[in-house]
C-alpha cells in the first residue's frame, strides 16, 4: 500500500513538472508581431475599448473627452472600461491579467514614463507612437522635456492627456498670518519655520500613508540635489551611495520629524484636511489637492488656500502625467489611433482638463477655460525646468517603486540615512535601474 502511494505521488510530481513545462510553452504562443504602427486614411469604425481608472470624481472629465471623440468619429462604438481605485491600484492588476491573457484593450491609461516603459515597453508589448506625434505636429506642441521623459531612444510610447505638478506646498494664508510665519522658500527656511510652529504647538507638516511619504521624499530630493543632479540620479550618473544622496535621506528624516505620528492611517485627503482645519501649517502634495479643495471643500484659490513650490524647488516643475498607450495585439488598431489622436488634440485636452483640475500637456491650450490655480501651474509648466516624479511613475519602473516604499517604511523606524541610501543602491541594481 505504502509503495503504491509513493508511486502515485512520484507520478503526480512528474505530471506537475511536465505541466510546468507546458505552461511555459503556452506563454510562447502569444502573438509576436513586432510590427509598426501604420497610419492610413481609412475612417475608423467598429469597437474601441479604452481602459482607465478614471471613475468617480474623474469620470465626468473622461466623459467630456469621449463626447468630443464620438462627435468626430461617429462610426466607432466606444466601450469605456474603468476599474476604480486611486492612482490605478486595482486597474493595473486587472490590466496585467488581461495583457498576459492576450486580451488587451485598444488603449489603456498609464502613468507616462518609466512605469509604462519598465513594464510594458521592455516587455515589447507597446506600439511606438512616433508616427502619430509626427503627423500631428506634437513634437512642437508638447514641451521637449516631456517628450524626453515619456520616450526612449526607440520611440515615444504614450500620449499624455493631463499633467500634474507634484512639488506643491499648500497652506491657508490667514492661518500663517495668525501664527506669524511666512512661506519658506528653501529647506533651511522651512526647518526654521517648523521650529517656530512647533514651539507654538502647531504641527508644521501633515502627511498621509506611504505613497505620500514617497512624494515628500521626492520633493526633498529635488530640493537637496537641484534639478540637474536629480535627473542625473535617475539616469544612473550619480550613485545611490553618494554623500549627496545620504544628505537627501538626512533632510528627509528632519522633514519626518515635522510630521504627524498617525500619518500611515491617513489618506492624502485627510492630510490636506489637517491643513484646512488649522491643525497643521503646510502639506506637500501633488496638485490634485487643488481640485479637492476647490470642488469638494469649496475653497477659493488664492484666498481660501495658497500654494507655493515645495521649499528649495523654485523654478522647477516636478511632472507627472496620465497618458494613453496602444498595446500590440489589440483588435482595432485604426480606432486606437483615432483615440490617441483625440487624447493629444487641443479640443480633447481642453474638454478633459478643466473638469479634472489638471493642466493640459500641450503648451497651446485655451487657458481661459481653467481655474486660477491651473493658470499659474500652466505658466510654470511652460517656463520652468521639468523633472519627473518618482511616486507617480515617471522616473522609475514599477519594481523600483514597489521596493522603494519598503525602504521608506524601514527608514521611518530606523532613521538610518546611510543604510537607506545603501538599500536604494541595492534595489536600483536588482531592478535594472543602473546601466
Amino acid at each position: 500500500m505504502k509503495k503504491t502511494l509513493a508511486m502515485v505521488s512520484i507520478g503526480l510530481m512528474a505530471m506537475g513538472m511536465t505541466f510546468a513545462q507546458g505552461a511555459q510553452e503556452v506563454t510562447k504562443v502569444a502573438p509576436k508581431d513586432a510590427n509598426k504602427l501604420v497610419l492610413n486614411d481609412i475612417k475608423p469604425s467598429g469597437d474601441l475599448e479604452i481602459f482607465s481608472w478614471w471613475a468617480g470624481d474623474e469620470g465626468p472629465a473622461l466623459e467630456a473627452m469621449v463626447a468630443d471623440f464620438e462627435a468626430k468619429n461617429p462610426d466607432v462604438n466606444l466601450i469605456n472600461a474603468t476599474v476604480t481605485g486611486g492612482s490605478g491600484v486595482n486597474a493595473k492588476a486587472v490590466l496585467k491579467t488581461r495583457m498576459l491573457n492576450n486580451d488587451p484593450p485598444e488603449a489603456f491609461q498609464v502613468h507616462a514614463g518609466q512605469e509604462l516603459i519598465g513594464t510594458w515597453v521592455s516587455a515589447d508589448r507597446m506600439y511606438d507612437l512616433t508616427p502619430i506625434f509626427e503627423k500631428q505636429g506634437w513634437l512642437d506642441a508638447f514641451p521637449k522635456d516631456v517628450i524626453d521623459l515619456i520616450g526612449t531612444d526607440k520611440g515615444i510610447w504614450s500620449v499624455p492627456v493631463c499633467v500634474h505638478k507634484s512639488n506643491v506646498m499648500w497652506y491657508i494664508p490667514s492661518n500663517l498670518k495668525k501664527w506669524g510665519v511666512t512661506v519658506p522658500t528653501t529647506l533651511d527656511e522651512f526647518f526654521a519655520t517648523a521650529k517656530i510652529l512647533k514651539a507654538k504647538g502647531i504641527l508644521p507638516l501633515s502627511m498621509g500613508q506611504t505613497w505620500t511619504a514617497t512624494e515628500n521624499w521626492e520633493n526633498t530630493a529635488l530640493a537637496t540635489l537641484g534639478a540637474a543632479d536629480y535627473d542625473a540620479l535617475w539616469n544612473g550618473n550619480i550613485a545611490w551611495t553618494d554623500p549627496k544622496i545620504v544628505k537627501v535621506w538626512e533632510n528627509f528624516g528632519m522633514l519626518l520629524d515635522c510630521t504627524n505620528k498617525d500619518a500611515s492611517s491617513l489618506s492624502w485627503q485627510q492630510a490636506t484636511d489637517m491643513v484646512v482645519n488649522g491643525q497643521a501649517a503646510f502639506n506637500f502634495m501633488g496638485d490634485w489637492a487643488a481640485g479637492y479643495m476647490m470642488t469638494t471643500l469649496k475653497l477659493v484659490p488664492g484666498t481660501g488656500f495658497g500654494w507655493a513650490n515645495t521649499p528649495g524647488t523654485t523654478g522647477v516643475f516636478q511632472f507627472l502625467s496620465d497618458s494613453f498607450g496602444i498595446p500590440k495585439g489589440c483588435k482595432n488598431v485604426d480606432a486606437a489611433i483615432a483615440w490617441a489622436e483625440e487624447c493629444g488634440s487641443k479640443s480633447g485636452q481642453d474638454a478633459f482638463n478643466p473638469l479634472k483640475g489638471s493642466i493640459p500637456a500641450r503648451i497651446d491650450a485655451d487657458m481661459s477655460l481653467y481655474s486660477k490655480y491651473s493658470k499659474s501651474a500652466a505658466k510654470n509648466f511652460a517656463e520652468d525646468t521639468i523633472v519627473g516624479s518618482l511616486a507617480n511613475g515617471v522616473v522609475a519602473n514599477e519594481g523600483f517603486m514597489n521596493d522603494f516604499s519598503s525602504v521608506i517604511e524601514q527608514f521611518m523606524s530606523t532613521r538610518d540615512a546611510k543604510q537607506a541610501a545603501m538599500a536604494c543602491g541595492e534595489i536600483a541594481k536588482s531592478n535594472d535601474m543602473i546601466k
Partner: protein
Amino acid sequence: MGKKNSKETLYSVLILLPSIILIAVFVYGFIGTTIYSSMTDWKGMSVDPIKNFIGLDNYKSLFTSFINKGFRQDLVNTVTYTIFLLAGTLIFGLLLAILLDRSVKKEGIYRTIFLYPMALSFIVSGTVWRWLLAPSGGLNAIPTWFGNSQGTFQWISSKKQIWQFNWQNIFKVLALVIAVVFIIFLINSIINENKKATKRNSIVVAILLIFAFIIQPLLPPAIATEELHGFNLATIGILLAGIWQYSGYAMALYLAGLRGLSASIKESAKLDGASEFTYYTKIAIPNLKPITMSAVVIMAHISLKLFDLIYAMAGTDNAFTGHPSIRMYTTTFRANKLALGSAMAVILFICAAMFIIPYMIHSHKERLQ
C-alpha cells in the same frame, strides 16, 4: 486477491480517475509550476519570458538579503498573528459557548448575534474596523464620553515593537521556542507518569538546549548585520478585528461539542457534588479536545489568509502590519517579480502544510484505532 476483488479495484480506480487527473493538473500541477518558477529568475511581463534556472537563490535572498528584510518581519508577524488569533478566538469562543450552554433564554438570538460577524467578508469588517480604530475617533474617542482625555494609542499605525530578537540568532530562537513546547509536553508526561514519553521528551529538550546554548554560538551568524524583529504593536488592531470576527465561529464549534456531551454525565457530576466550575474544567473541556484540535487547524489557516483584512484595514504598504500574502501580491503583480513572488507563495504553502499535515496524520491515526 480474488477475482471479484480486483474487479472492484478496477472500478474504484476508474471512478476516481477523473478527479485524480483534475487534482493532478489544477492543484499539484500548479503547485509544481509555482515551485519551478520560484527557482528561476523570471521577471517582467514579456510575451516571451526568459526563465533561467537559479536554484534556491530566491529563497536565500528572502531569508538573508538586506532588501528583503521586510519579508522576514512579515514572517514574524505571521507567527504572532497565528498565536494571538488562536488564543483569542478559542478563549472567547469557549467562554461564549459555556455561557450559552447554561440554558439561556432566547439562546437562538444570542447565537445568531455572535455568529453573525463570520458571515461578513473581511473587506466589510476591515473597513468598519479601520474607522473604529482611526487615531482620532472610534475607540480612542470612548474615554472622552467619561470626561477623560482622548486615547492616543495608534491602533494600526503604531511603529513600536516589543519582544525583539536579532535575526542573526534565528536558529537559537527557533530552538528555544520548540524547547518550550517540549518542556510543556515533558511536564504533562511526568504528571501522567508516562515513562516512555518522559524519556523521549527529556532527550528532545536536552538536545534543543545544547544546540541553543552551546552549538549555536559556535556557528557563524545567519546574516551579516544585526537585524531586529519582534511583535509589532500595530498588529493589535488587526488582531482585534480578526478575533471579533471569528470568536463566534469558535463558539459555534464548542457549543456543538458541549451539546454533544450526554446530559447524564452532567447529571451524575452534579449528584457527586461537582460545582458548575468543576464540571466545565474537569469534565467538559477535556472532552472537547477533538473540537479544539479542529478549531486550531481552521483558525491557524485563517491566520494565513488574513490578506483581505489587512488590505482593507492598513493597505498594502504599512510595513508594521505586513503579512507574507500581501507582500507576495505586491511583489508579483506590482513589482512584476514573478519568481520572487512564487518563492513567497511556496513559503506560505509550506506554512499551511505545517498545520494541515500533522492534523491529517493525527486524524488518520485516530481512524485506524
